[in-house]
């Protein structure tokens, strides 16, 4: 990972947050989530050699960060999650899948496509885990009937 990559990830997240009509004073928090995710994801992927494991772990971290910020700001966590996972979301994978098919390399396209789907599944699984844990913690504290 290059040193400035988390910064670019954070700034790209802020751009998407603004596109998603996130209010401007929440943008730095959302960007921090995106930068944090990328800073952990790249070394973890290099260490484990598995994109799916890295993305699942990182999504748990992004989910936890979002729940924390959400409790602090009294807003739904999903507002911050939607921005925080932007750098992980498999847009690049979709592009390389398409490129492989265009070049007539169907096998490469198939394996890249499956990897992309697996990455999306890993992100969703990570978020489900962090969501379930935070729900357990909140319900133990006797929170509202509405889930965060």
């Amino acid at each position: 990972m290059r040193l400035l990559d988390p910064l670019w990830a954070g700034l790209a997240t802020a751009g998407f947050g603004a596109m998603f009509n996130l209010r401007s004073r929440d943008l730095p928090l959302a960007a921090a989530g995106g930068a944090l995710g990328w800073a952990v994801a790249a070394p973890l992927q290099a260490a484990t050699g598995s994109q799916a494991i890295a993305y699942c772990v990182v999504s748990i971290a992004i989910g936890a960060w979002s729940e924390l910020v959400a409790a602090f700001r009294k807003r739904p966590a999903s507002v911050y999650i939607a921005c925080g996972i932007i750098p992980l979301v498999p847009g690049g994978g979709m592009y390389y899948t398409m490129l492989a098919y265009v070049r007539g390399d169907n096998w490469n396209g198939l394996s890249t496509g499956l990897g992309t789907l697996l990455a999306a599944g890993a992100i969703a699984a990570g978020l489900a885990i962090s969501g379930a844990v935070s729900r357990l913690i909140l319900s133990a504290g006797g929170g509202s009937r509405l889930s965060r």
Partner: protein
Amino acid sequence: MDQDFAPTNPEDALLLAADAARAMLESGGETYRAEETAVAVAAALDGAEAECYATPTGVTISFFGLDGHVHSIVRRIKRRAMHLERVALIDALARSLAAGERGYAAAAAELDRIERLPGHSVAAGAAAAAAGAGFFALLFGGAWNDALVAAATGALVTSFTPAMARKRVPDFFTNLLAGAAATLLCLGARSLGLATSSDATVIGVLMLLVPGITVTNAIRDTIAGDLVAGVARGADAFMSAAAISAGAGAAYQLWRLLGGAMG
């Protein structure tokens, strides 16, 4: 009960619950959140046994009113655009109703205000898209000039897509055209020597278009048990991805036929 606090009739409560759930789904809120919002609003306004069934394309709500009748309504959802501020405000509105901090009249006025909340202007949207595309180009290994080309292309492509949605051009066709335009513009910029890596530049722009969030949310809905909603979102994501890929792929083939360099 206070006159402003209770709705005058069950239909008012029903309409408020339905509009809140619809606005939640139109703004990119999760399926379970839209359902919980509708149930919380209906229950807070004296509806017993409130039930809501939401999918990305429609909401059905019913409850047993104090007048002894069952009331229900169906709301169809046709356009969806991310508006996280609306999601947060509708969520807060449902909470304040459930907590009894707000009555019917105040809640109806607040929902009306939320629905009128403007999205970003075209210029701000273009600037945000430029930032998203440019920084993604850097993240995917592009150089500074690649980022600038991606930013300009991203701003251009995302400025014309909302106009096409307003003119009721099908999303499939808009995505097809956007994917092709983004790819051709980036390849053209590279052949003019403006960009160095066409991969990084094209990915930066396509990140604005590809349904990465939709794919992830489809799986999240399915994990949460909202199976129909998950499958519907998955189909939505698949069609967008197919359209963008077809557009980008066609642009690549055209470029190759015209003798342009790839890479």
